[in-house]
Protein backbone atom coordinates (compact mmCIF):
# COMPACT_ATOMS: atom_id res chain seq x y z
CA UNK A 1 0.00 0.00 0.00
CA UNK A 2 1.48 3.31 -1.03
CA UNK A 3 -1.00 5.23 1.15
CA UNK A 4 -2.01 4.57 4.75
CA UNK A 5 -5.16 5.47 6.64
CA UNK A 6 -3.64 8.64 8.14
CA UNK A 7 -2.76 9.95 4.70
CA UNK A 8 -6.21 9.17 3.33
CA UNK A 9 -7.79 10.92 6.31
CA UNK A 10 -5.63 13.95 5.64
CA UNK A 11 -6.62 13.95 1.94
CA UNK A 12 -10.31 13.57 2.81
CA UNK A 13 -10.06 16.53 5.18
CA UNK A 14 -8.34 18.67 2.54
CA UNK A 15 -11.11 17.67 0.12
CA UNK A 16 -13.82 18.36 2.72
CA UNK A 17 -15.27 14.86 2.47
CA UNK A 18 -16.67 12.95 5.41
CA UNK A 19 -16.15 9.24 4.90
CA UNK A 20 -17.45 6.29 6.89
CA UNK A 21 -14.99 3.78 8.42
CA UNK A 22 -15.92 1.34 5.71
CA UNK A 23 -15.24 3.94 3.03
CA UNK A 24 -11.82 4.61 4.55
CA UNK A 25 -10.84 0.96 4.31
CA UNK A 26 -11.84 0.75 0.63
CA UNK A 27 -10.30 4.15 -0.16
CA UNK A 28 -6.89 3.23 1.24
CA UNK A 29 -6.80 0.17 -1.00
CA UNK A 30 -8.18 1.74 -4.17
CA UNK A 31 -6.36 5.07 -3.92
CA UNK A 32 -3.11 3.16 -3.33
CA UNK A 33 -3.72 1.22 -6.54
CA UNK A 34 -4.36 4.42 -8.46
CA UNK A 35 -1.25 6.09 -7.05
CA UNK A 36 0.85 3.01 -7.91
CA UNK A 37 -0.63 3.09 -11.41
CA UNK A 38 0.13 6.75 -12.07
CA UNK A 39 3.61 6.32 -10.57
CA UNK A 40 4.74 4.92 -13.93
CA UNK A 41 4.87 8.54 -15.11
CA UNK A 42 8.07 8.97 -13.12
CA UNK A 43 9.88 6.77 -15.66
CA UNK A 44 9.16 9.16 -18.57
CA UNK A 45 12.04 11.38 -19.61
CA UNK A 46 10.63 14.89 -19.48
CA UNK A 47 13.81 16.92 -19.06
CA UNK A 48 13.42 20.23 -20.96
CA UNK A 49 9.67 19.63 -21.54
CA UNK A 50 7.48 22.58 -20.56
CA UNK A 51 4.32 21.42 -18.72
CA UNK A 52 1.27 21.89 -20.91
CA UNK A 53 -1.07 24.67 -19.83
CA UNK A 54 -3.54 24.54 -22.72
CA UNK A 55 -3.88 21.90 -25.45
CA UNK A 56 -3.92 24.56 -28.19
CA UNK A 57 -1.49 26.86 -26.36
CA UNK A 58 -4.14 29.55 -26.26
CA UNK A 59 -3.74 32.42 -23.83
CA UNK A 60 -6.46 33.48 -21.43
CA UNK A 61 -8.68 36.07 -22.99
CA UNK A 62 -9.45 39.30 -21.14
CA UNK A 63 -12.65 41.28 -21.39
CA UNK A 64 -13.44 44.90 -20.62
CA UNK A 65 -14.37 45.41 -16.97
CA UNK A 66 -18.03 46.16 -17.63
CA UNK A 67 -21.26 45.04 -16.02
CA UNK A 68 -22.76 42.47 -18.38
CA UNK A 69 -24.99 40.35 -16.15
CA UNK A 70 -28.33 41.37 -14.72
CA UNK A 71 -29.21 40.83 -11.06
CA UNK A 72 -30.88 37.41 -10.90
CA UNK A 73 -30.18 36.76 -7.24
CA UNK A 74 -33.69 35.69 -6.32
CA UNK A 75 -33.83 33.17 -9.13
CA UNK A 76 -30.40 31.75 -8.30
CA UNK A 77 -31.30 31.46 -4.63
CA UNK A 78 -34.28 29.24 -5.42
CA UNK A 79 -31.74 26.40 -5.51
CA UNK A 80 -30.33 27.14 -2.05
CA UNK A 81 -31.46 25.16 0.99
CA UNK A 82 -31.43 28.13 3.38
CA UNK A 83 -31.64 31.83 2.52
CA UNK A 84 -33.09 34.89 4.15
CA UNK A 85 -33.27 38.49 2.89
CA UNK A 86 -31.10 37.56 -0.08
CA UNK A 87 -28.39 36.02 2.13
CA UNK A 88 -27.23 32.40 2.17
CA UNK A 89 -27.44 30.88 5.62
CA UNK A 90 -24.69 28.73 7.16
CA UNK A 91 -24.08 27.55 10.72
CA UNK A 92 -22.74 30.21 13.08
CA UNK A 93 -19.06 30.88 12.39
CA UNK A 94 -18.27 33.36 15.19
CA UNK A 95 -19.39 32.89 18.77
Amino acid at each position, binding site marked *: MSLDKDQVQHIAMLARLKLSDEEYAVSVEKLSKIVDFVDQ*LSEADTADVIPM*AHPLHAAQRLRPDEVTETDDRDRYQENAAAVTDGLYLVPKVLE
Partner: protein
Amino acid sequence: MDLHLQTMTELAAGLERGDFTSVELTESLLQRIAAHNDKLNAFVTITTDEALAAAARADQARIAGSGGALNGLPVIHKDIFCTRGVMTTCGSKMLDNFISPYDATVVKKLADAGAVVLGKSNMDEFAMGSSNETSYFGPVHNPWDLECSPGGSSGGSSASVAARFAPAATGTDTGGSIRQPASLTGTVGLKPTYGRVSRYGMVAFASSLDQAGVITRSSEDAARLLGVMAGFDERDSTSIDQPVPDYLASIGDSIKGLRVGIVRQHFDQGLDEQCGARVKDAIAVLESLGATTIEVDLPNLDLSVPTYYVVAPAECSSNLSRFDGVRFGHRAENPEDLLDLYCRSRGEGFGDEVKRRIMTGTYVLSAGYYDAYYLKAQRVRQLIADDFKQAFANVDVIAGPTTPTPAFKLGDKVDDPITMYLNDIYTIGANLAGLPAMSVPCGFVNDLPVGLHLVGAHFAEETILRCGHQYQQQTDWHSACPEAFE
Protein backbone atom coordinates in the same frame (compact mmCIF):
# COMPACT_ATOMS: atom_id res chain seq x y z
CA MET B 1 -43.86 5.09 -41.34
CA ASP B 2 -41.03 3.87 -39.08
CA LEU B 3 -39.99 7.42 -38.28
CA HIS B 4 -37.74 6.17 -35.48
CA LEU B 5 -35.52 4.36 -37.97
CA GLN B 6 -34.77 7.51 -39.95
CA THR B 7 -31.72 9.67 -39.54
CA MET B 8 -32.00 13.34 -38.74
CA THR B 9 -31.23 14.18 -42.38
CA GLU B 10 -34.06 11.91 -43.56
CA LEU B 11 -36.45 13.32 -40.98
CA ALA B 12 -35.57 16.89 -41.99
CA ALA B 13 -36.50 16.05 -45.58
CA GLY B 14 -39.78 14.42 -44.48
CA LEU B 15 -40.74 17.46 -42.40
CA GLU B 16 -39.88 19.73 -45.30
CA ARG B 17 -42.03 17.72 -47.70
CA GLY B 18 -44.88 17.74 -45.20
CA ASP B 19 -44.99 13.92 -44.93
CA PHE B 20 -45.50 14.35 -41.18
CA THR B 21 -45.41 17.16 -38.63
CA SER B 22 -42.97 17.66 -35.80
CA VAL B 23 -45.81 17.04 -33.34
CA GLU B 24 -46.51 13.66 -34.97
CA LEU B 25 -42.82 12.77 -34.96
CA THR B 26 -42.37 13.89 -31.36
CA GLU B 27 -45.45 11.97 -30.21
CA SER B 28 -44.30 8.79 -31.91
CA LEU B 29 -40.83 8.97 -30.31
CA LEU B 30 -42.24 9.83 -26.88
CA GLN B 31 -44.47 6.75 -27.17
CA ARG B 32 -41.43 4.60 -27.95
CA ILE B 33 -39.60 6.05 -24.98
CA ALA B 34 -42.58 5.42 -22.69
CA ALA B 35 -42.84 1.84 -23.94
CA HIS B 36 -39.16 0.87 -23.87
CA ASN B 37 -37.22 3.09 -21.48
CA ASP B 38 -37.85 0.79 -18.50
CA LYS B 39 -35.57 -1.77 -20.14
CA LEU B 40 -32.74 0.72 -20.60
CA ASN B 41 -33.05 3.40 -17.86
CA ALA B 42 -31.66 5.84 -20.42
CA PHE B 43 -33.34 8.94 -19.01
CA VAL B 44 -33.19 10.96 -15.83
CA THR B 45 -35.99 13.25 -17.01
CA ILE B 46 -38.42 12.90 -19.91
CA THR B 47 -39.68 16.33 -20.92
CA THR B 48 -42.97 15.33 -22.56
CA ASP B 49 -44.84 18.62 -22.18
CA GLU B 50 -41.91 20.84 -23.15
CA ALA B 51 -41.19 18.61 -26.17
CA LEU B 52 -44.76 18.73 -27.47
CA ALA B 53 -44.88 22.51 -27.00
CA ALA B 54 -41.56 22.95 -28.83
CA ALA B 55 -42.78 20.67 -31.65
CA ALA B 56 -45.98 22.71 -32.02
CA ARG B 57 -43.90 25.91 -32.19
CA ALA B 58 -41.66 24.31 -34.82
CA ASP B 59 -44.67 23.34 -36.93
CA GLN B 60 -45.96 26.90 -36.68
CA ALA B 61 -42.55 28.26 -37.65
CA ARG B 62 -42.46 25.97 -40.68
CA ILE B 63 -45.81 27.26 -41.86
CA ALA B 64 -44.55 30.81 -41.34
CA GLY B 65 -41.35 29.93 -43.22
CA SER B 66 -39.15 30.93 -40.28
CA GLY B 67 -37.78 27.64 -38.93
CA GLY B 68 -34.09 27.20 -38.07
CA ALA B 69 -31.60 24.60 -39.30
CA LEU B 70 -32.98 21.89 -36.98
CA ASN B 71 -36.60 22.96 -37.03
CA GLY B 72 -38.81 20.30 -35.47
CA LEU B 73 -36.06 17.69 -35.18
CA PRO B 74 -35.86 15.68 -31.95
CA VAL B 75 -32.76 15.50 -29.76
CA ILE B 76 -31.92 14.33 -26.26
CA HIS B 77 -29.56 16.24 -23.97
CA LYS B 78 -27.09 14.55 -21.69
CA ASP B 79 -28.08 15.57 -18.16
CA ILE B 80 -24.80 17.47 -17.79
CA PHE B 81 -26.13 20.40 -19.83
CA CYS B 82 -28.02 23.03 -17.86
CA THR B 83 -31.58 23.41 -19.07
CA ARG B 84 -33.54 26.34 -17.71
CA GLY B 85 -36.51 25.28 -15.60
CA VAL B 86 -35.72 21.57 -16.01
CA MET B 87 -33.86 19.38 -13.52
CA THR B 88 -30.13 19.07 -14.29
CA THR B 89 -28.64 16.32 -12.12
CA CYS B 90 -25.35 15.35 -13.76
CA GLY B 91 -26.20 11.83 -12.60
CA SER B 92 -25.60 12.80 -8.98
CA LYS B 93 -27.48 12.86 -5.71
CA MET B 94 -25.65 16.15 -5.17
CA LEU B 95 -27.82 17.79 -7.85
CA ASP B 96 -31.01 15.73 -7.67
CA ASN B 97 -32.89 18.86 -6.56
CA PHE B 98 -31.20 21.28 -8.94
CA ILE B 99 -33.37 23.24 -11.38
CA SER B 100 -31.06 25.20 -13.61
CA PRO B 101 -31.76 28.95 -13.72
CA TYR B 102 -30.23 29.23 -17.19
CA ASP B 103 -29.56 27.34 -20.44
CA ALA B 104 -26.16 26.02 -21.50
CA THR B 105 -24.95 27.57 -24.76
CA VAL B 106 -25.31 24.19 -26.51
CA VAL B 107 -28.90 23.92 -25.28
CA LYS B 108 -29.68 27.47 -26.38
CA LYS B 109 -28.12 27.04 -29.82
CA LEU B 110 -30.06 23.84 -30.52
CA ALA B 111 -33.29 25.41 -29.23
CA ASP B 112 -32.74 28.52 -31.36
CA ALA B 113 -32.31 26.24 -34.39
CA GLY B 114 -35.71 24.70 -33.63
CA ALA B 115 -34.66 21.36 -32.12
CA VAL B 116 -37.19 19.55 -29.92
CA VAL B 117 -35.72 18.20 -26.67
CA LEU B 118 -37.29 14.88 -25.64
CA GLY B 119 -35.50 14.62 -22.31
CA LYS B 120 -32.29 14.49 -20.31
CA SER B 121 -30.21 11.34 -20.56
CA ASN B 122 -28.71 9.29 -17.77
CA MET B 123 -24.94 9.38 -17.33
CA ASP B 124 -22.09 8.44 -15.04
CA GLU B 125 -22.04 10.73 -12.02
CA PHE B 126 -20.39 14.03 -13.01
CA ALA B 127 -19.29 12.22 -16.21
CA MET B 128 -16.81 10.13 -14.19
CA GLY B 129 -17.07 6.58 -15.42
CA SER B 130 -16.87 4.41 -18.52
CA SER B 131 -19.88 2.18 -17.94
CA ASN B 132 -22.74 4.35 -16.67
CA GLU B 133 -22.67 2.40 -13.43
CA THR B 134 -21.64 5.37 -11.29
CA SER B 135 -24.96 7.17 -11.93
CA TYR B 136 -27.01 7.89 -8.80
CA PHE B 137 -30.04 6.96 -10.94
CA GLY B 138 -28.79 3.45 -11.70
CA PRO B 139 -26.95 1.99 -14.67
CA VAL B 140 -28.12 2.27 -18.26
CA HIS B 141 -28.45 -0.98 -20.21
CA ASN B 142 -27.09 -1.60 -23.68
CA PRO B 143 -29.88 -2.10 -26.27
CA TRP B 144 -27.76 -4.79 -27.97
CA ASP B 145 -27.57 -6.87 -24.79
CA LEU B 146 -29.41 -5.67 -21.72
CA GLU B 147 -26.84 -7.32 -19.44
CA CYS B 148 -24.09 -5.19 -20.97
CA SER B 149 -23.03 -1.62 -20.36
CA PRO B 150 -23.76 0.99 -23.04
CA GLY B 151 -20.43 2.62 -22.14
CA GLY B 152 -19.99 5.89 -20.35
CA SER B 153 -20.16 8.49 -19.37
CA SER B 154 -22.68 9.46 -22.10
CA GLY B 155 -24.36 6.04 -21.80
CA GLY B 156 -27.94 7.29 -21.70
CA SER B 157 -27.31 9.23 -24.89
CA SER B 158 -25.66 6.30 -26.70
CA ALA B 159 -28.33 3.82 -25.60
CA SER B 160 -31.11 6.22 -26.65
CA VAL B 161 -29.73 6.71 -30.15
CA ALA B 162 -29.04 2.98 -30.57
CA ALA B 163 -32.57 2.15 -29.38
CA ARG B 164 -34.02 4.66 -31.87
CA PHE B 165 -35.51 6.90 -29.17
CA ALA B 166 -34.10 9.87 -31.10
CA PRO B 167 -31.84 10.32 -34.10
CA ALA B 168 -29.34 12.31 -32.05
CA ALA B 169 -28.25 13.10 -28.53
CA THR B 170 -25.68 15.44 -27.07
CA GLY B 171 -22.77 14.15 -25.06
CA THR B 172 -19.57 15.29 -23.46
CA ASP B 173 -16.14 13.75 -23.78
CA THR B 174 -13.32 14.20 -21.28
CA GLY B 175 -11.44 10.94 -21.92
CA GLY B 176 -13.70 9.12 -24.37
CA SER B 177 -17.16 9.67 -22.89
CA ILE B 178 -18.80 10.21 -26.30
CA ARG B 179 -16.72 7.87 -28.47
CA GLN B 180 -16.51 4.84 -26.17
CA PRO B 181 -20.31 4.64 -25.60
CA ALA B 182 -20.85 5.23 -29.33
CA SER B 183 -18.51 2.34 -30.10
CA LEU B 184 -20.23 0.01 -27.62
CA THR B 185 -23.71 0.78 -28.99
CA GLY B 186 -23.08 0.89 -32.75
CA THR B 187 -23.60 4.65 -33.06
CA VAL B 188 -21.53 7.56 -34.35
CA GLY B 189 -19.88 9.69 -31.66
CA LEU B 190 -18.08 12.95 -32.39
CA LYS B 191 -15.83 14.85 -30.01
CA PRO B 192 -14.77 18.14 -31.61
CA THR B 193 -11.51 20.04 -31.12
CA TYR B 194 -11.03 21.45 -27.62
CA GLY B 195 -12.65 24.89 -27.60
CA ARG B 196 -14.74 24.30 -30.75
CA VAL B 197 -18.03 24.02 -28.84
CA SER B 198 -18.83 26.18 -25.83
CA ARG B 199 -18.57 24.63 -22.37
CA TYR B 200 -20.80 27.33 -20.84
CA GLY B 201 -23.52 25.67 -18.81
CA MET B 202 -21.95 22.23 -19.13
CA VAL B 203 -21.24 21.02 -15.60
CA ALA B 204 -17.44 21.04 -15.39
CA PHE B 205 -15.42 17.89 -14.74
CA ALA B 206 -11.90 18.54 -16.10
CA SER B 207 -11.90 21.91 -17.82
CA SER B 208 -8.79 21.45 -19.97
CA LEU B 209 -10.18 18.20 -21.41
CA ASP B 210 -13.99 18.54 -21.47
CA GLN B 211 -15.63 19.04 -24.84
CA ALA B 212 -19.25 18.80 -25.95
CA GLY B 213 -20.24 16.74 -28.96
CA VAL B 214 -22.92 14.49 -30.38
CA ILE B 215 -24.03 10.90 -30.75
CA THR B 216 -25.94 10.14 -33.95
CA ARG B 217 -26.34 7.25 -36.37
CA SER B 218 -24.66 8.91 -39.35
CA SER B 219 -21.62 11.11 -39.85
CA GLU B 220 -23.84 13.39 -41.90
CA ASP B 221 -26.12 14.01 -38.91
CA ALA B 222 -23.08 14.66 -36.71
CA ALA B 223 -21.90 17.25 -39.25
CA ARG B 224 -25.34 18.86 -39.32
CA LEU B 225 -25.46 19.18 -35.53
CA LEU B 226 -21.87 20.32 -35.14
CA GLY B 227 -22.56 23.17 -37.55
CA VAL B 228 -25.24 24.41 -35.16
CA MET B 229 -23.36 23.77 -31.88
CA ALA B 230 -19.90 25.03 -32.79
CA GLY B 231 -18.63 28.57 -32.55
CA PHE B 232 -17.09 31.18 -30.32
CA ASP B 233 -18.81 31.98 -27.04
CA GLU B 234 -17.60 34.84 -24.92
CA ARG B 235 -19.12 33.13 -21.88
CA ASP B 236 -16.57 30.31 -22.13
CA SER B 237 -13.08 31.62 -21.47
CA THR B 238 -11.52 28.69 -23.35
CA SER B 239 -13.78 28.97 -26.39
CA ILE B 240 -11.73 29.47 -29.55
CA ASP B 241 -12.60 32.25 -31.94
CA GLN B 242 -12.46 30.54 -35.33
CA PRO B 243 -15.02 30.62 -38.12
CA VAL B 244 -17.33 27.60 -38.31
CA PRO B 245 -17.14 25.92 -41.73
CA ASP B 246 -20.15 24.36 -43.41
CA TYR B 247 -19.41 20.79 -42.36
CA LEU B 248 -21.94 19.41 -44.83
CA ALA B 249 -20.41 21.19 -47.83
CA SER B 250 -17.42 18.87 -48.22
CA ILE B 251 -18.80 15.71 -46.65
CA GLY B 252 -19.67 14.18 -50.04
CA ASP B 253 -16.19 14.71 -51.44
CA SER B 254 -14.03 11.70 -52.24
CA ILE B 255 -11.32 10.55 -49.84
CA LYS B 256 -9.03 9.58 -52.71
CA GLY B 257 -5.50 10.40 -51.67
CA LEU B 258 -6.42 10.85 -48.00
CA ARG B 259 -3.44 9.80 -45.88
CA VAL B 260 -4.61 7.48 -43.11
CA GLY B 261 -2.22 6.87 -40.24
CA ILE B 262 -2.16 3.44 -38.62
CA VAL B 263 -0.61 3.40 -35.17
CA ARG B 264 1.68 0.45 -34.53
CA GLN B 265 0.95 0.44 -30.80
CA HIS B 266 -2.84 0.22 -31.36
CA PHE B 267 -2.70 -3.37 -32.50
CA ASP B 268 -0.42 -4.59 -29.74
CA GLN B 269 -1.52 -6.66 -26.79
CA GLY B 270 -4.70 -5.60 -25.04
CA LEU B 271 -6.81 -5.33 -28.19
CA ASP B 272 -9.40 -8.07 -28.66
CA GLU B 273 -8.33 -10.01 -31.75
CA GLN B 274 -11.74 -9.95 -33.41
CA CYS B 275 -12.20 -6.24 -32.76
CA GLY B 276 -8.82 -5.68 -34.35
CA ALA B 277 -9.94 -7.69 -37.40
CA ARG B 278 -13.11 -5.55 -37.81
CA VAL B 279 -11.05 -2.38 -37.58
CA LYS B 280 -8.56 -3.68 -40.16
CA ASP B 281 -11.49 -4.52 -42.47
CA ALA B 282 -12.72 -0.94 -42.07
CA ILE B 283 -9.30 0.45 -42.93
CA ALA B 284 -9.32 -1.76 -46.04
CA VAL B 285 -12.62 -0.11 -47.04
CA LEU B 286 -10.96 3.30 -46.72
CA GLU B 287 -8.13 2.02 -48.93
CA SER B 288 -10.64 0.77 -51.49
CA LEU B 289 -11.96 4.36 -51.62
CA GLY B 290 -8.52 5.62 -52.57
CA ALA B 291 -7.04 6.43 -49.16
CA THR B 292 -3.43 5.47 -48.56
CA THR B 293 -2.27 4.05 -45.25
CA ILE B 294 0.94 5.07 -43.55
CA GLU B 295 2.35 3.59 -40.35
CA VAL B 296 2.79 6.14 -37.60
CA ASP B 297 4.21 5.96 -34.12
CA LEU B 298 2.71 7.18 -30.83
CA PRO B 299 5.55 6.10 -28.54
CA ASN B 300 3.97 7.50 -25.36
CA LEU B 301 0.53 5.95 -25.88
CA ASP B 302 0.92 3.76 -22.78
CA LEU B 303 1.40 6.83 -20.64
CA SER B 304 -1.83 8.49 -21.76
CA VAL B 305 -4.02 6.70 -19.20
CA PRO B 306 -1.81 7.46 -16.17
CA THR B 307 -1.38 11.05 -17.41
CA TYR B 308 -5.12 11.42 -17.67
CA TYR B 309 -5.68 9.96 -14.20
CA VAL B 310 -3.53 12.71 -12.72
CA VAL B 311 -4.72 15.68 -14.80
CA ALA B 312 -8.46 14.88 -14.84
CA PRO B 313 -8.81 14.18 -11.09
CA ALA B 314 -6.73 17.29 -10.28
CA GLU B 315 -9.10 19.48 -12.28
CA CYS B 316 -12.13 17.62 -10.92
CA SER B 317 -11.07 18.18 -7.32
CA SER B 318 -10.85 21.88 -8.05
CA ASN B 319 -14.10 22.13 -10.06
CA LEU B 320 -16.17 20.11 -7.63
CA SER B 321 -15.11 22.24 -4.68
CA ARG B 322 -18.07 24.46 -5.63
CA PHE B 323 -20.44 21.89 -4.16
CA ASP B 324 -20.51 23.13 -0.60
CA GLY B 325 -24.12 22.57 0.48
CA VAL B 326 -24.65 26.33 0.66
CA ARG B 327 -25.64 27.83 -2.69
CA PHE B 328 -27.13 24.83 -4.48
CA GLY B 329 -27.08 21.06 -4.36
CA HIS B 330 -27.41 18.61 -1.50
CA ARG B 331 -27.16 20.00 2.03
CA ALA B 332 -26.67 17.81 5.09
CA GLU B 333 -29.27 17.99 7.87
CA ASN B 334 -28.46 19.63 11.22
CA PRO B 335 -24.80 20.54 10.70
CA GLU B 336 -22.76 21.08 13.88
CA ASP B 337 -20.68 23.82 12.29
CA LEU B 338 -19.58 25.08 8.90
CA LEU B 339 -16.91 22.42 8.42
CA ASP B 340 -19.39 19.69 9.28
CA LEU B 341 -21.83 21.20 6.76
CA TYR B 342 -19.22 21.05 4.00
CA CYS B 343 -17.88 17.59 4.83
CA ARG B 344 -21.21 15.87 5.34
CA SER B 345 -22.98 17.56 2.40
CA ARG B 346 -20.17 16.40 0.13
CA GLY B 347 -19.78 12.99 1.80
CA GLU B 348 -23.51 12.31 1.38
CA GLY B 349 -23.98 13.96 -2.01
CA PHE B 350 -21.12 12.38 -3.97
CA GLY B 351 -20.86 8.72 -4.96
CA ASP B 352 -17.82 6.45 -4.54
CA GLU B 353 -16.11 7.10 -7.89
CA VAL B 354 -16.51 10.86 -7.64
CA LYS B 355 -15.07 10.84 -4.11
CA ARG B 356 -12.20 8.67 -5.32
CA ARG B 357 -11.36 11.11 -8.09
CA ILE B 358 -11.68 14.16 -5.86
CA MET B 359 -9.28 12.52 -3.40
CA THR B 360 -6.86 11.45 -6.13
CA GLY B 361 -6.88 15.00 -7.43
CA THR B 362 -6.47 16.50 -3.99
CA TYR B 363 -3.50 14.20 -3.36
CA VAL B 364 -1.68 15.01 -6.62
CA LEU B 365 -2.15 18.74 -6.01
CA SER B 366 -1.21 18.67 -2.33
CA ALA B 367 1.98 20.10 -0.87
CA GLY B 368 4.96 17.87 -1.62
CA TYR B 369 3.27 15.94 -4.44
CA TYR B 370 2.39 18.67 -6.93
CA ASP B 371 5.69 18.55 -8.84
CA ALA B 372 5.99 14.78 -8.83
CA TYR B 373 2.46 14.15 -10.07
CA TYR B 374 0.62 17.13 -11.48
CA LEU B 375 3.49 18.99 -13.17
CA LYS B 376 5.03 15.72 -14.28
CA ALA B 377 1.74 14.67 -15.87
CA GLN B 378 1.44 18.00 -17.69
CA ARG B 379 4.95 17.44 -19.05
CA VAL B 380 4.10 13.95 -20.26
CA ARG B 381 0.89 15.37 -21.69
CA GLN B 382 3.02 17.68 -23.82
CA LEU B 383 5.07 14.69 -25.01
CA ILE B 384 1.85 12.92 -26.02
CA ALA B 385 0.62 16.02 -27.87
CA ASP B 386 4.01 16.26 -29.62
CA ASP B 387 3.68 12.63 -30.76
CA PHE B 388 0.36 13.48 -32.41
CA LYS B 389 1.81 16.63 -33.96
CA GLN B 390 4.60 14.61 -35.49
CA ALA B 391 2.14 12.01 -36.78
CA PHE B 392 -0.10 14.67 -38.35
CA ALA B 393 2.87 16.04 -40.27
CA ASN B 394 2.55 12.94 -42.48
CA VAL B 395 -1.12 11.92 -42.29
CA ASP B 396 -4.59 13.51 -42.44
CA VAL B 397 -6.37 11.16 -40.06
CA ILE B 398 -5.37 8.44 -37.65
CA ALA B 399 -7.57 5.34 -37.80
CA GLY B 400 -7.74 2.57 -35.21
CA PRO B 401 -9.98 0.88 -32.66
CA THR B 402 -12.15 3.02 -30.35
CA THR B 403 -12.11 0.49 -27.52
CA PRO B 404 -10.07 -2.65 -26.71
CA THR B 405 -13.19 -4.87 -26.51
CA PRO B 406 -16.90 -4.78 -27.37
CA ALA B 407 -19.41 -3.96 -24.61
CA PHE B 408 -18.67 -5.64 -21.28
CA LYS B 409 -21.18 -6.93 -18.75
CA LEU B 410 -22.54 -4.54 -16.15
CA GLY B 411 -20.78 -5.32 -12.88
CA ASP B 412 -17.67 -6.77 -14.53
CA LYS B 413 -15.27 -3.88 -14.05
CA VAL B 414 -16.95 -1.64 -11.54
CA ASP B 415 -14.88 -2.88 -8.57
CA ASP B 416 -11.52 -2.33 -10.20
CA PRO B 417 -10.89 1.28 -11.18
CA ILE B 418 -7.68 0.55 -13.10
CA THR B 419 -9.31 -2.04 -15.40
CA MET B 420 -12.15 0.40 -16.01
CA TYR B 421 -9.72 3.25 -16.72
CA LEU B 422 -7.83 1.16 -19.30
CA ASN B 423 -11.00 0.95 -21.40
CA ASP B 424 -10.19 4.49 -22.53
CA ILE B 425 -6.64 3.79 -23.73
CA TYR B 426 -7.33 4.62 -27.39
CA THR B 427 -9.57 7.62 -26.79
CA ILE B 428 -7.77 9.59 -24.05
CA GLY B 429 -4.93 10.82 -26.29
CA ALA B 430 -7.29 13.00 -28.35
CA ASN B 431 -8.46 14.75 -25.17
CA LEU B 432 -4.95 15.26 -23.83
CA ALA B 433 -3.90 16.81 -27.15
CA GLY B 434 -7.23 18.63 -27.75
CA LEU B 435 -7.83 16.88 -31.09
CA PRO B 436 -11.17 16.15 -32.80
CA ALA B 437 -12.08 12.47 -32.96
CA MET B 438 -15.02 10.26 -33.75
CA SER B 439 -16.18 6.67 -33.55
CA VAL B 440 -18.04 5.09 -36.47
CA PRO B 441 -19.71 1.64 -36.36
CA CYS B 442 -17.55 -0.89 -38.24
CA GLY B 443 -19.02 -4.32 -37.54
CA PHE B 444 -19.91 -6.78 -34.81
CA VAL B 445 -18.12 -9.25 -32.56
CA ASN B 446 -20.39 -11.81 -30.90
CA ASP B 447 -23.42 -9.69 -31.90
CA LEU B 448 -22.00 -6.62 -30.16
CA PRO B 449 -20.97 -3.50 -32.10
CA VAL B 450 -17.38 -2.42 -32.71
CA GLY B 451 -16.23 1.13 -33.51
CA LEU B 452 -13.64 2.58 -35.87
CA HIS B 453 -11.83 5.52 -34.26
CA LEU B 454 -10.86 8.44 -36.49
CA VAL B 455 -8.69 11.24 -35.09
CA GLY B 456 -7.95 14.48 -36.94
CA ALA B 457 -5.60 17.42 -36.54
CA HIS B 458 -6.86 20.48 -34.63
CA PHE B 459 -10.01 21.89 -36.28
CA ALA B 460 -10.00 19.13 -38.93
CA GLU B 461 -13.54 18.02 -38.08
CA GLU B 462 -14.39 18.31 -41.78
CA THR B 463 -11.78 15.68 -42.64
CA ILE B 464 -12.87 13.06 -40.11
CA LEU B 465 -16.56 13.67 -40.84
CA ARG B 466 -15.92 13.23 -44.56
CA CYS B 467 -13.90 10.07 -43.91
CA GLY B 468 -16.67 8.71 -41.66
CA HIS B 469 -19.37 9.62 -44.16
CA GLN B 470 -17.57 8.05 -47.11
CA TYR B 471 -17.04 4.89 -45.04
CA GLN B 472 -20.74 4.83 -44.14
CA GLN B 473 -21.69 5.19 -47.81
CA GLN B 474 -19.94 1.84 -48.38
CA THR B 475 -21.18 0.04 -45.26
CA ASP B 476 -24.45 -0.27 -43.39
CA TRP B 477 -23.33 -1.24 -39.89
CA HIS B 478 -24.92 1.96 -38.60
CA SER B 479 -28.32 0.91 -40.01
CA ALA B 480 -28.39 -2.28 -37.93
CA CYS B 481 -30.99 -1.93 -35.20
CA PRO B 482 -31.05 -4.00 -31.99
CA GLU B 483 -33.82 -6.60 -32.44
CA ALA B 484 -35.83 -5.62 -29.38
CA PHE B 485 -36.00 -2.01 -30.59
CA GLU B 486 -36.89 -2.39 -34.26
